[in-house]
């Protein structure tokens, strides 16, 4: 299978949007750590986690190319379906008003209050700041790494576009963090999660089908049909949920 825009475009977009959501959630906590416990520990903890995540991508990504492609597609496609449909289900329920929307300002206030209650800050590196920033960056970053590998490694040559999408999201969020110095609450997070859920579910279905040896009608372009199919299903579910409530 060769890389076409039908694959590279959606894989880059999926990795960018998914990474944007995850990095925004990490930024909220890192900003709280920086404001309450100091920027040295906040940036140090996040930087260490980002280096570790980069090492994981460099190690795991190429290693997957040694496994037969159909097995990788079947395995990663299944995981991508579990991950993407979980996101899509939750964003449908949030859009329909069944469960509450995620609020970055409220999360920032909660994290700040918790950090204030953890005692004074000594000289040198603040362990609490380093540990908190490291943990949140690792947690959210692990999801980014999974998405980049799952979207990228199941198709020959897609790891680079997926990686570039995630890198672009990181740069956007870091830029917003430096410019605003407050949580990025103006981005409609649930709309992003809805879109990412649709894209990842479509990719998961496509990779599983490829892994099983299915002949997709229209070959790679059927990925776009799957995106449309999941989008229509999710929109219908949201509307029906709202109407019945």
């Amino acid at each position: 299978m060769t890389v076409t825009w039908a694959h590279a475009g959606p894989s880059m977009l999926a990795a960018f949007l998914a990474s944007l959501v995850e990095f925004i959630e990490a930024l909220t906590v890192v900003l709280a750590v920086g404001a309450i416990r100091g920027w040295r520990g906040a940036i140090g903890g996040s930087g260490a986690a980002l280096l570790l995540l980069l090492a994981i991508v460099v190690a795991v990504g190429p290693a997957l190319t040694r496994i037969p492609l159909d097995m990788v597609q079947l395995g990663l496609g299944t995981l991508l379906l579990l991950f993407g449909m979980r996101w899509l289900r939750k964003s449908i329920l949030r859009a329909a008003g069944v469960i509450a929307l995620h609020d970055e300002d409220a999360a920032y206030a909660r994290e700040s209050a918790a950090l204030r209650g953890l005692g004074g800050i000594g000289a040198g590196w603040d362990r609490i700041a380093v540990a908190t920033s490291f943990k949140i960056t690792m947690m959210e970053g692990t999801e980014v790494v999974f998405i980049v590998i799952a979207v990228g490694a199941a198709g020959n040559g897609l790891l680079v576009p997926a990686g570039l999408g995630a890198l672009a999201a990181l740069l956007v969020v870091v830029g917003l963090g430096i410019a605003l110095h407050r949580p990025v609450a103006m981005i409609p997070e649930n709309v992003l999660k809805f879109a990412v859920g649709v894209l990842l579910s479509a990719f998961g279905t496509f990779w599983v089908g490829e892994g099983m040896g299915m002949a997709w009608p229209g070959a790679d372009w059927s990925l776009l049909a799957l995106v449309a199919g999941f989008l229509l299903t999710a929109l219908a579910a949201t509307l029906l949920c709202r109407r019945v409530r």
Partner: protein
Amino acid sequence: MKTIVSELLALFVDDAGLAVAIVVWLGVAWLLFHLVPAWSPVILFAGLAVILLESVFRTRRTP
């Protein structure tokens, strides 16, 4: 270690019923692929769409 495993599991499983249904359906779709290969892409997607709808409406009834 326990925390890491539970965090990793939480990446993929939120509604256990949804996760189990997806995995079971992939097995069924694999069997059907050998019986009706031409229709298997449509069958695979349709089943997943139904599973998503069932999970959403089940949660709406008992959130």
